[in-house]
């Protein structure tokens, strides 16, 4: 098992290294002078020249990459040309908000996806199954920003009981920062009102991100439940008189979870990507909105950093998913131990 994790880790590092070359290369072959773009048309030639030297733009590509990689390995992602601050500082400020949103939404899609999957697998070909299939079709076909707008329109504007934008009401003072996750911090500080307020704010954006994945995970779970229900071991349990409920939850659910968990890494990636859109709609002060801002301002340093950070988060999540799957499925675990 350890050997397997080690190999996966090396693979992830290799992929991240390749990704850094790819994105760095793309950033450098773009038309236009990054230093000039950063400083704007009003800067003098000397200023531009100075920044060019600072960024090593006057040297050949491999040398530029070497300098850049060296500072990244020292924990320095460079300076944002747009916010004029070290990128690591910007990340520290914005990343927790996005991770809070993404994790919440991941949790929602997990719980709702499983429940609807199990129910529609159990009540196969009934009205519930039909309804969940219809919702799945629509959910997968709806871009997350459209979901966000529909939810915003229905729950905030028409029904009016959920605040529309932001992370917390303006009149509230955010709790002292411990984890950077507002709801958790609120609970740690004992300010449950703040935590509740944060929870109210996160529900709509988190659901906007989750809808497509609830639909998809639900369908995957359903089909694997239906598959497994026809297996002999389930029939044997039923014949032995074990109550249906415990057959489902004790014996059926675990093997049926494997395909769902396997697609979760990909789901997570899409939730992060879609956060780029949903944060815009809900004015969520997070990393994705920061990313969009630096992208629209052609801040090359920050763009490269943003892509790498997302690659790194994605790599970690995939690693976790692989480990979880191997725990759920003894066959995979044993196979790896044997090989």
């Amino acid at each position: 098992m350890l050997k397997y994790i080690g190999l996966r880790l090396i693979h992830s590092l290799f992929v991240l290294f390749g990704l850094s070359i790819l994105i760095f290369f793309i950033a450098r072959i773009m038309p236009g002078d990054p230093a000039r773009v950063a400083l704007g048309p009003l800067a003098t030639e000397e200023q531009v020249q100075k920044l060019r030297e600072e960024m090593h733009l006057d040297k050949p590509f491999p040398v530029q990459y070497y300098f850049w990689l060296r500072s990244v390995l020292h924990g320095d992602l460079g300076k944002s040309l747009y916010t004029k601050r070290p990128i690591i500082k910007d990340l520290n400020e914005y990343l927790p908000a996005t991770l809070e949103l993404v994790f919440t939404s991941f949790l929602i899609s997990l719980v709702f996806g499983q429940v609807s999957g199990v129910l529609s697998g159990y009540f196969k070909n009934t009205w519930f199954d039909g309804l969940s299939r219809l919702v799945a079709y629509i959910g997968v076909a709806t871009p997350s920003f459209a979901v966000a707008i529909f939810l915003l329109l229905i729950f905030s504007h028409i029904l009016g009981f959920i605040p529309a934008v932001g992370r917390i009401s303006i009149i509230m003072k955010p709790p002292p920062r411990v984890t950077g996750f507002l709801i958790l911090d609120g609970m740690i500080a004992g300010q449950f009102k703040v935590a509740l307020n944060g929870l109210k704010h996160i529900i709509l954006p988190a659901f906007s991100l989750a809808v497509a994945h609830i639909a998809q995970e639900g369908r995957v779970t359903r089909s694997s439940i239906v598959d497994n229900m026809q297996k002999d071991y389930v029939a044997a349990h039923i014949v032995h008189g074990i109550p249906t409920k415990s057959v489902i939850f004790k014996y059926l659910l675990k093997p049926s979870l494997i395909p769902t968990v396997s697609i979760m890494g990909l789901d997570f990636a899409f939730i992060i990507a879609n956060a780029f859109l949903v944060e815009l709609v809900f004015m969520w002060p997070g990393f994705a909105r920061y990313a969009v801002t630096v992208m629209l301002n052609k801040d090359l340093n920050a763009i490269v950093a943003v892509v790498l950070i997302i690659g790194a988060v994605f790599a970690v999540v995939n690693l976790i998913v692989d480990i979880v799957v191997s725990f759920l499925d003894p066959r995979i675990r044993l196979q790896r131990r044997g090989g």
Partner: protein
Amino acid sequence: MPKNEIAASAFTAKRINISKGWYKFSRNPLSVLGLTVLIIIVLAAVLAPYITPYPEHAGPYTNFRESSLPPSLKHFFGTDTVGRDVFSRVIFGYRFSLLLAAVVITLSVPPGILLGLVAGYTRRKWLEVGIMRITDIFLAVPPLVLALAVTAMLSPKLLNQMMAISLMWWPWYCRLVYSVTSSLRHEYFVHDAELTGVGRGFILTRAILPNCVGPILTKITLDMGFVIILGASLSFIGLGVQPPKPGLGTMVADGAKRLPAEWWMAVFPALAIMLVILSFNLIGDGLRDMFAVEEI
């Protein structure tokens, strides 16, 4: 002549598949519905200048006397803030979405298939590993993020958006074709073809490629919808079709600023995006069933 035999068998097999396949496809009412809706959308988009009520509204047209009107018989989807007919603009918007999907698929599928065939068939381990690790790198970040970064670094317009998404898209096909090819690599019919002494190109295109057609076609239809979502997302952020041209994503973004009072400006373009993606997905499901049955 073994060459001709292989060619002939591949050819006849394909011919039978089409009529049989259509029969199977047409058994699924939802897929047929999807196909019908898609044909209507494509026709409407192609004929947009002739069939939309206000074709001139697709450009920089203004008429402030009719601005921000709610949906009515005169303007099915209402009008936007400068008085342009949202319905006409949605139909024109489909042109950009469909064009984007078609261009991305055309640009990214052939290189993906080629690299997948090579990686799956070659006996040189370094070539196989090399190609597949490169696809890993491209798949290490969600396509939206990489496409966003690339489009942003170029400049925001439809052409760059097409290039950026195409650059992100070939690895998926490479992987798909690779997995089919490497599983067929040691089948008897491939060995037989090798023994007859036909060229490698012939084996790849006539013996292996026909087996990839089903999964590739299914993936293409599902991807059309996916690319349209991606394009609309980029436009929504402001990195796609530039105003005054009517991009569906751009229209949703502009309309979102007018919520909730003038809801029609965002809601109808959003529904239009959903409709086209839904129809592609329904067709994709039909194709998947069709080819799945075929394999057994």
